[in-house]
């Protein structure tokens, strides 16, 4: 009897203690209604240790909040870009699908679909390998689609290969403010910009297919950013029929890209365009332009140390065909008809004609080290002379005949060369 009383007393004490510390918590009302997969995946990303390999099994995995990884040295691997699908169709939070703030990161063999904002963003990090990843907005090209598909920014030593990017309302593959980058053997389709290299120093872009975008491959420099870019080689790509109407959000830099642009160099220096197959881009196969042609009509001068001009450009050995037959925009349409007739076409290369007055020789031409050089058979350049209100539009090939010293290939130390 005594023992019984003692036991019940202990029980009573225990329950009082429990009442104090509130251990009797039941399931929280605020536990997510999410599929267990999402919670498990995010937990694995949060608790990951360097060296971990996080696998995404085959299957269609709905995710409704942004995922993120902050630990370096992690690999995320699926079973194939058409098998392991992270679908963000019902996403309620997160400006990205997967945000990576880490180095020594590899991701491969999976798809990220229908994010509200960017699909895969990697913000600051070194030694980044992205292979066989598909980012796609599955409803086709629409303004409501997220901005960027695959988006490394402020990264260095980046390999981005064998990926597929479809439907981005800005750029399918967008490498920003980075250093030492290889973008190869990817396919970009139905984006506003297929592949965009922006404010990046040292990029090799080759073996890619860019088609059905508004603009195929863009090499841009924007002002007011921590890093200005230069030195890109764009070669051995197939850039054809990038004639999708511009569906970029009005006001964005890419919304000024005319539909039918093959390759566009804007305000960037030391760019080599060679051995590409560039055809049937209805505005022009290649556009070379300054920041002044991007539609920003600020009366305020561009930032002091920003170079708005495309300089030291070298175009050679490309295979141009078709293109220029139906330019986008009233001005270009009128220009085409006036100069080349209803059935005619603009030349392969379109240049806005802005030059830095400080870099001209006594004849008013760009000094050789800054020149736009075209050594590309019969390809001609239309100088739209926009700087002078198009007073003196010219079409010429010979004037642009020159060469620059070729850029060295990009070497990625993380891949042993």
């Amino acid at each position, binding site marked *: 009897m005594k023992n019984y009383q*003692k036991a019940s*007393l202990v029980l009573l*004490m225990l329950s*009082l*203690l429990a009442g*104090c*510390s*509130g*251990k*009797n*918590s*039941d*399931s*929280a*009302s*605020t*536990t997510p*209604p*999410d599929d267990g997969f*999402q*919670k498990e995946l*995010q*937990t694995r*990303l*949060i*608790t990951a240790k360097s060296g971990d390999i996080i696998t995404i099994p085959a299957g269609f995995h709905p995710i409704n*909040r*942004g995922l*993120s*990884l*902050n630990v370096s040295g992690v690999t995320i691997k699926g079973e194939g870009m058409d098998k392991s699908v992270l679908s963000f169709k019902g996403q*309620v*939070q*997160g*400006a990205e699908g997967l*945000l990576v*703030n880490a180095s020594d990161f590899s991701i491969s063999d999976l798809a990220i679909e229908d994010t*509200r*904002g*960017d699909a895969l963003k990697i*913000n*600051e990090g070194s030694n980044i390998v992205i292979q066989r990843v598909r980012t796609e907005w599955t409803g086709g090209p629409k*303004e*409501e689609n997220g*901005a*960027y598909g695959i988006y490394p*920014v402020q990264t260095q030593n980046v390999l981005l290969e064998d990926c597929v990017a479809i439907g981005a*309302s800005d750029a399918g593959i967008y490498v920003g*403010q980075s250093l030492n980058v290889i973008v190869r053997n990817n396919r970009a389709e139905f984006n506003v910009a297929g592949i965009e290299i922006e404010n990046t120093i040292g990029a090799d872009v080759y073996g890619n297919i860019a088609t059905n975008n508004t603009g195929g491959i863009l090499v841009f420099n*924007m*002002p*007011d950013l*921590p890093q200005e870019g230069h030195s890109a080689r764009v070669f051995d790509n197939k850039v054809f029929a990038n004639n999708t109407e511009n569906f970029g*959000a*009005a*006001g*964005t830099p890419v919304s000024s890209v005319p539909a039918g642009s093959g390759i566009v160099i804007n305000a960037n220096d030391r760019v080599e365009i060679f051995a590409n197959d560039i055809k049937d881009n209805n505005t022009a196969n290649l556009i070379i332009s300054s920041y002044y042609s991007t539609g*920003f009509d*600020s009366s*305020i001068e561009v930032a002091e140390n920003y170079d708005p001009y495309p300089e030291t450009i070298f175009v050679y050995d490309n295979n141009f065909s078709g293109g220029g037959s139906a330019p986008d925009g009233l001005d270009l349409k009128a220009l085409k008809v006036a100069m080349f007739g209803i059935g005619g076409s603009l030349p392969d290369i379109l240049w806005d004609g802005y030059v830095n007055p400080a870099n001209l020789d006594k004849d008013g031409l760009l000094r050789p080290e800054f020149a736009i050089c075209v050594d590309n058979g019969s390809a001609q350049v239309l100088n739209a002379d926009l700087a002078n209100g198009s007073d003196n539009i010219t079409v010429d090939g010979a004037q642009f005949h020159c060469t620059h010293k070729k850029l060295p290939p990009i070497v990625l130390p993380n891949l042993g060369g």
Partner: protein
Amino acid sequence: MWLRKVPLLLLLLLSGCGQQSAPVRVFAADSFPEHLSDWNLLRSDGRQLRLGSDVIPYDLNTPLFTDYALKLRAVYLPAGKPVTYREGQALDFPVGTVISKTFYYAVQDSSRVLKDAAAVSVDARRSLSLSDYRLLETRLLIRYDTGWRALPYVWNDAQTDASLEIAGALSQLEMADLDGSLQVFNYIIPDANQCAGCHAPNHSDKELSPIGPRVDQLNKFYNYDDGVDNQLSHWLKLGKLDRVPADLSLLPRRADWSDAAVSLERRARAYLDANCAHCHNPKGAADTSGLHLNIDARMDRNFGICKPPVAAGRGSGDRPYDIFPGRPDSSILLFRMQHSDPAIAMPELGRSLNHAEGAALIEEWIANMSGSC
């Protein structure tokens, strides 16, 4: 004989549930407890939330907007190790510090949360009546010798305890406005990585740190259980603050964004710093945009004045510049504050609703700016 001791024992145990709470426990970084109650920072019996006896509640001049949630901030400081004064960033808290921020709403009919409730301090008994309020989450920042760690705890339905949810949580709430209109929204509790999305103001070293408790933010009065006092003076008197300049009246003070007596510019800059600068500073995650909104930034192009968008996507809203002086309707900054679509909304984390009053401040400020683009 033995039985006669029982009532006394019971009383002792019961008194453990009264005013005196157990001392705060600081757990090792590899053994975080499942339950918030284990820290002894806050206790709840489902009717009253009480602050632990050794934590100090505090408030900020201009806080981050979080879907109209009210916030109870409190700090536990280890004995004998005062906070070191410094300006321009959070105070230098000693190892062993635990900062807690509890998010709650005033409630109506037990389920509906109220939009326009004024934030309340804990009352004289350092407690909050849960018949009037609903607790959602408590976030902890703990200072270890290796740096800060961030943990999200989610309160249960019974409001008796919160459990650790490193993957965060989502809760659909119905919010009632003053006029009775109702709105359903997703209240999102960030996951542990997203804590770092704000609490790593230097995105290169990615070190976590507190953001709010800076001198200029803490330099205000608080209604303590023993009377009203300036928060910094209070900490000083408690011996919790070290190396403070002698003349307290000269310490920097952040404007209260809602104080109409203060200039528009000071209020706007206080608001932008609290809501944007954890990413939008020269070393922050959003330095990729070249837009810096920290309170000590120069008001030039990188502050958004006549700055065109870079990678804003749909966030640019067909507007030419981040800030177009005199023309709020042409300013991207305001557009992003007035939208809740995750592809557009700024800040990216911490809100599903628009902060109409904050946007109104920024609108008025831009409208009254001189100059043009």
